[in-house]
């Protein structure tokens, strides 16, 4: 599973230019930029991954509003990211079979 050259270039350019714009824009845009990159990467690879991972990539991460920032609701924003992290972690636990307690 690989990105096409165009997809990789678009994502790489986004990341490089976002590193530069972060020097001038509000620091709270940092998470927003990372999430946008993650959403784009998820969109590129979703058609080429396992059904379980596709479900992950087409789920919670795509529902984070592209313009959401921390200042609007600091606790809610952190909680939403925690939820997202937890969903990814649970997917990894299942994918790599490390839930020893369940065995």
């Amino acid at each position, binding site marked *: 599973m690989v990105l096409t050259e165009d997809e990789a270039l678009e994502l790489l350019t986004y990341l490089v230019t*976002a590193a530069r*714009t972060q020097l001038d824009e509000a620091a709270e*845009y940092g998470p927003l930029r990372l999430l*946008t990159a993650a959403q784009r990467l998820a969109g590129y690879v979703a058609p080429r991954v396992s059904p379980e991972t596709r479900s992950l990539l087409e789920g919670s991460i795509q529902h984070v509003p*592209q*313009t*959401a920032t921390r200042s*609007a*609701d600091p606790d809610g*924003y952190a909680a939403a990211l925690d939820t997202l992290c937890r969903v990814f972690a649970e997917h990894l636990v299942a994918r790599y079979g490390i839930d020893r307690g369940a065995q």
Partner: protein
Amino acid sequence: MTSEPVPREQLERILDAAAHAPSAGNRRLQRFVVIDDAATLRVLRMVSPGMLQRPAAAVVICVDVARAVEYGFSATSSGLFIDVGTAAQTMLLAAHALGLGSGPVTSFSKAAVSAVLNLPERWSPEMIVCLGHAAATQPSPVGPHRRRTWRDLTHWGRLDSNANPAAGS
């Protein structure tokens, strides 16, 4: 925004409005670069992390820095950027009057935009005004921000010593 093109005639009306925007000393130190071909718009978006929309056209507002310096401005004089704002706001209003969607973008790499558009070194790109036809569905709003009214933003008369300027009156 939809992929429906913005007619050239509408773009020209928007630019004509911008040419009448307030400008310090009527010096007109802003320059406009219009992009309405899909390939260049795609690359412009790639180097503009703040461009979440996919516009059908974009106007890059530049400051002719060398010309400004010739007038005696410093290259970072606030007036130059205020005039970028008045030009942009005038474009947004003109676009709205024409039934178009629009949105300003400032989060882009100036170095990359300059390279993509082959801008002369004396021009500095400062803002991109995205233009197009508004899509039927829009992205989710930015969180539960309280919409501030003019009362939240305004003080009548001289502020007293105990006033909290951040809170408004």
